[in-house]
């Protein structure tokens, strides 16, 4: 039935749009950051930095995303990798100009909860 298959294809194409419309972002607020390198050491301007976040639970890396947010709420995807300790997430930040920024993380914890949160920080000149 070509008509049906066309409709099906159209519906499938619309699915991501529908999902984005209905559920653009989400948080099942469970995983929390218990330790952050940002709290210990300020980020230096014009130097690429690796930020370390320690979560209270195991994190599924493939199902997690982190963004660097700059002034005006502009989102830049950040590269993430697993740290040595359980629950540790390493975020590679590029060289930054002085100013206000935030890290927005969306992580999928091992217990099935999705968490979305922001960590704000300042880069001094």
């Amino acid at each position: 039935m070509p008509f049906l298959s066309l409709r099906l294809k159209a519906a499938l194409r619309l699915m991501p749009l529908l999902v984005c419309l209905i559920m653009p972002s989400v948080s099942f607020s469970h995983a929390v950051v218990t330790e952050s390198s940002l709290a210990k050491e300020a980020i230096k301007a014009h130097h690429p930095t690796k930020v370390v976040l320690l979560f209270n639970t195991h994190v599924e890396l493939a199902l997690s995303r982190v963004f660097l947010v700059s002034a005006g709420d502009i989102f830049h995807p950040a590269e993430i990798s697993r740290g040595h300790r359980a629950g540790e997430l390493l975020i590679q930040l590029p060289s930054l100009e002085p100013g206000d920024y935030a890290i927005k993380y969306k992580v999928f914890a091992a217990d099935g909860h999705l968490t979305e949160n922001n960590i704000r920080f300042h880069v001094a000149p």
Partner: protein
Amino acid sequence: MYMQGLANFIDDFLGGLILISYALVVGSLFWSAFILKVWAKEPLANPAIIRRAVSVLRFGAIALASLQGIKLLIKGMVLWGVLGELPIQDYCGTVQFQAGFLRMLLALGIALLAGKLLLDTRQKKLWNLLLLLSIPLVIAGAWLVHAVGRFEHREILMTITLLHQMSAAIWFGGVAQLLALWRLGYQDEEARLFWPHAIIRFGILGAVAVVMLLMTGLPLAINYIASFEGLFGTGYGGLVITKVVLLILALAFALINHRAGRRWKESGEAGALKRKVPYYIEAEAFILVGILFIAATLSSQPPSEDIAKNPELTATIPEVVEMFTPRLPKIHSPSHDQLLAGEAGRVAVVNKIPSVAATEWSDYNHNISGIFLTTMGLMAFLSYIPSPAFRWARYWPLGFIGLSIFLFFRSDGETWPLGPIGFWESTFGNGEVFQHRIATLLAFALGIIEVRARTRLDAQKVRYMFPILCAFGGILLLTHAHAEFELKSEYIIQSTHTTMGLLAVIMAAGRWLELRLAPGATQSDGTVINEATISGLLAIFSMFLIGTIMMFYREPLF
């Protein structure tokens, strides 16, 4: 755009329903084994009673399979939305997906077997298979709880949580079975005769379940809460306190029922067992449903232990007490323009600026709603005075309609009808707005229904809608999300909403009991102070307390 709350709410809501379905399956199995003794050569109950028990089990299994499937689907959709793509392989590779999928398949198998058992309840082979499928179903649950993501004592915590869930399931499943048996008694003489025996027997099984519940709950609480600050200063701790309060209430009902059973055993007096106990069990079921929803909400909270040492994430006791401290309600609101002016800064990720106007707008909404509810509560108290001079007071539920109109315009000023964000976009794009819309509709429905129920004798059918809607409202409050706030602010707000949720569940159980214990009346007329009147007054008092909490509400500036 924030969708956190909606997903959170859906997850908690489905989680609560899954726990209820799971309890129906597991509890029914224990009921069949220990109360009906279906594995004995001669079961204690006739086939009609066993069939009824199997029907409940089958219903639970179908619900569990469907809900578990929906949950996996929704989680997949949420991931798709969050990540902009769905890495199916990675998602299917998570232990959550695998355990959930396995549980869904096992529940389907149980539903099929239960369907066959309905045709012949004496087939031991089918019962054995049912048991065989139920064991991995219970075990799979261990990979669906908090403990699975922990770094320390993971396996021990998983096992204890499993036993904790199973004990709760025995209790709630047994209560559901008792209610099913009572209903069967309307048409089956043997079910009527079996009723007192079932109460006595379940008293023993229920007591074992409660002891197990406490023995497993205590180490979990110690491990996840760990400190005084964690108990009173975090969302996790606050929910545990609420759970304990409801647990005490449910235990009180269980004790009353057990005593009635003992009286029947000792003296043969079965009056209370037939006139009151079934309704107490219904009220107990209301409370247990509340507990199961709290348990589901708990799983979306970080354990107190992980945040209790961080003053940015944990509230102090004075901060929580401050939320409940009496003060003059705010009766002046910032203008709509002032509210909108602060919105851009309030929702910014970088350079976020807390909006005083938004906080005051919210305070005003809560305080005025509180005035509505306390006034309605006072009127409702007057309506119990047996004098024609106070007949007008029976129309107190009209206040709900006024409240719903107020909420319709005020609850989310940045959205339709006052703000620039459209109805659909705001309703399905923000979980908090979604819940507020439901609450508005709920208040309107409550007003219409309860006025009819309180004033018209021919409105028998709709009378029970009020407690059911109240219970739903309570669940809404218990799972209420303020995801736009940081954990500490979220908890400070949550402490009031959880308390109101607790009171709403009590209100639902109280009104339900009032209706069940005094059938035929529009409401107890107060001429005789009996259980029905006391229950009704308790329900009204709970509403009054909800009103006072709202009247004194002050949102933290964030």
